[in-house]
């Protein structure tokens, strides 16, 4: 690859020329490539099946500054679809190897790996990025990233989101032959918590069934994993990434299955049950990652209108996709603006609570015993922590919260769920 002239010819046709299907506000210009290559910073969360695809697609679509974060190491079973990895990489960091491979193949791209948990990075780390792409497999990790992305969001006095504080996030997910891609613009499109109902809880087997009346190979595996391991291994923490641990569970589950005349315990099933693995299919990952990357390109450049806001993909009979425009939950605890309430910064917490109770706009008449928190601290709570939080009632609100625009979270038996109140400081 000596002569790179013409490398971005096709992309440039899309970005430098006006068109009929472009998004509102699109400005065709040659500088887009330069902008993608050198200005925009993208974070790819996850370097697994989806992550490998995302990194490849992003790099080939002109994104020149990519960071990737993943705490996992490469396992043999990843090699069928996580195509950036080779046999000799087994045991190494996914993020590091993926970054290295993409930089080898795509000239001029910088991929910076972070071999750690997403929780190990602070909010400042995430703030650096203009765009976050998620290639994750758990709801918990998605919700964590969602909380981070939404924590940057600020609203103006009319409750409209301040566009300069929006941290866009594009999420991909696959499960066997099905998948989804969605665009989250906090404050504009629904966040994860707005549409939590999309994720049904997983069923758990009752412990006593596992112990007394196992009926399936999964029951035998779960028994060994949850009950027999702690009994026989004393204090040793079970590690699903440790091969000897997995082998032990497999062997014991096999014995138990024989005892109860149950067929079908295999090492693969053992790993599946213990790690809660859903079969991953290379092409589903490719389809979903491609959709996500296209959305990233459209979101940054507006070269096309873009997805609004959730695309589901079903590959079971042919290819079926449907894009739904889900609605935000205006009461959402993570991305909601909160109900504005004017208070004097010198008012005590007790006075703020009284104002809250007297204000019909805040549903005050429903409030009986409000408990209040802000940021990560509980300011005043009823119940067993009443005594230890009571001294706060006499403190001024400005000494308890982070300043004008702070959000109070209010819980009350009269409310179905917590309410967000946005404090507007006014000198009385």
């Amino acid at each position, binding site marked *: 690859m000596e002569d790179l002239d013409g490398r971005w010819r096709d992309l440039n046709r899309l970005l430098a020329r006006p068109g009929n299907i472009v998004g509102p506000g699109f400005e065709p210009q040659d500088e887009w490539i330069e902008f993608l290559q050198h200005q925009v910073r993208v974070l790819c969360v996850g370097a697994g099946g989806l992550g490998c695809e995302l990194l490849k697609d992003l790099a080939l679509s002109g994104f020149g500054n990519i960071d990737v974060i993943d705490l996992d190491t490469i396992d043999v079973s990843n090699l069928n679809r996580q195509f950036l990895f080779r046999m000799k990489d087994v045991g190494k960091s996914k993020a590091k190897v993926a970054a290295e491979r993409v930089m080898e193949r795509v000239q001029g791209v910088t991929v910076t790996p972070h071999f750690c948990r997403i929780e190990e990075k602070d*909010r400042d780390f995430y703030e650096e990025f203009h765009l976050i792409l998620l290639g994750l497999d758990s709801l918990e990790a998605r919700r964590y990233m969602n909380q981070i992305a939404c924590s940057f969001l600020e609203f103006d006095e009319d409750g409209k989101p301040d566009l300069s504080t929006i941290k866009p996030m594009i999420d991909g997910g696959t499960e066997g032959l099905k998948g989804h891609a969605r665009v989250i613009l906090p404050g504009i499109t629904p966040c994860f918590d707005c549409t939590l109902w999309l994720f049904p809880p997983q069923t758990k087997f009752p412990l006593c069934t596992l112990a007394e009346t196992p009926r399936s190979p999964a029951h035998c595996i779960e028994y060994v994993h949850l009950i027999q391991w702690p009994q026989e291994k004393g204090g040793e923490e079970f590690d699903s990434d440790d091969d000897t641990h997995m082998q032990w569970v497999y062997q014991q589950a096999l014995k138990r299955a024989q005892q109860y005349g149950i067929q079908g315990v295999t090492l693969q099933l053992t790993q599946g049950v213990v790690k809660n693995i859903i079969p991953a299919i290379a092409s589903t990952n490719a389809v979903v990652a491609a959709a996500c990357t296209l959305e990233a390109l459209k979101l940054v450049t507006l070269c096309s209108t873009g997805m609004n806001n959730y695309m589901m993909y079903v590959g079971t009979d042919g290819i079926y996709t449907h894009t739904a425009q889900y609605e935000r939950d205006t009461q959402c605890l993570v991305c909601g603006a909160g109900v504005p309430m004017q208070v004097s910064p010198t008012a005590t917490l007790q006075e703020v609570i009284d104002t809250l109770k007297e204000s019909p706009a805040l549903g005050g008449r429903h409030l009986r015993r409000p*408990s209040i928190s802000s940021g990560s601290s509980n300011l005043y709570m009823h119940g067993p922590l009443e005594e230890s939080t009571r001294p706060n009632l006499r403190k001024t609100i400005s000494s308890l919260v982070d*300043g004008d625009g702070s959000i109070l979270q209010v819980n009350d038996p009269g409310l179905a769920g*917590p309410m967000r109140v946005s404090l507007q400081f006014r000198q009385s």
Partner: protein
Amino acid sequence: MIKLFSVKEKQQKEAAAAHGKLKQSPGELRLQKDISELNLAKGTTIIFPQGKDKLLNFEITIRPDEGLYKGGAFVFSFNVPTSYPHDAPKVKCKTRVYHPNIDLEGNVCLNILREDWKPVLSTNSIIYGLQFLFLDPNPDDPLNKDAAQMLQNDARSFEHSVRTSISRGAHIGGSYFPPCKA
């Protein structure tokens, strides 16, 4: 789609305003609601070893005032995931107790902790469930098979074993149950 980027504007934003801190997760907020609305029976107490702002780990002590387990004090640790109430808290019994539905590792067989958990349930529901386990141990759903069999075959010896283990400590079926008087 809305316009968020422009090649002409500098993309690096000013440092965020001071109040953009990470907040309590929705799970913690929901737990805050549960805790502030707790309705603890007489003899049941709660402690938060990590203080008032760290609600996700706490301990409940149940002291039944009737039934076979009267006079005992039983400590349960609650470990609440941030995905609460989507997922149930993890509950373990820290007191070694001779009970058909609690094994020697502290696993507890209570339907709402696993297969019957629903997000509308609360910490209160679990505490009720645990209190009920001491009033009405269920030999049909055993985790401690030995205890279940004794309860079924010889209720009087079972009662005796439970009472002695609570007041003085006892060896039952090869395991030692230290005293756990309230």
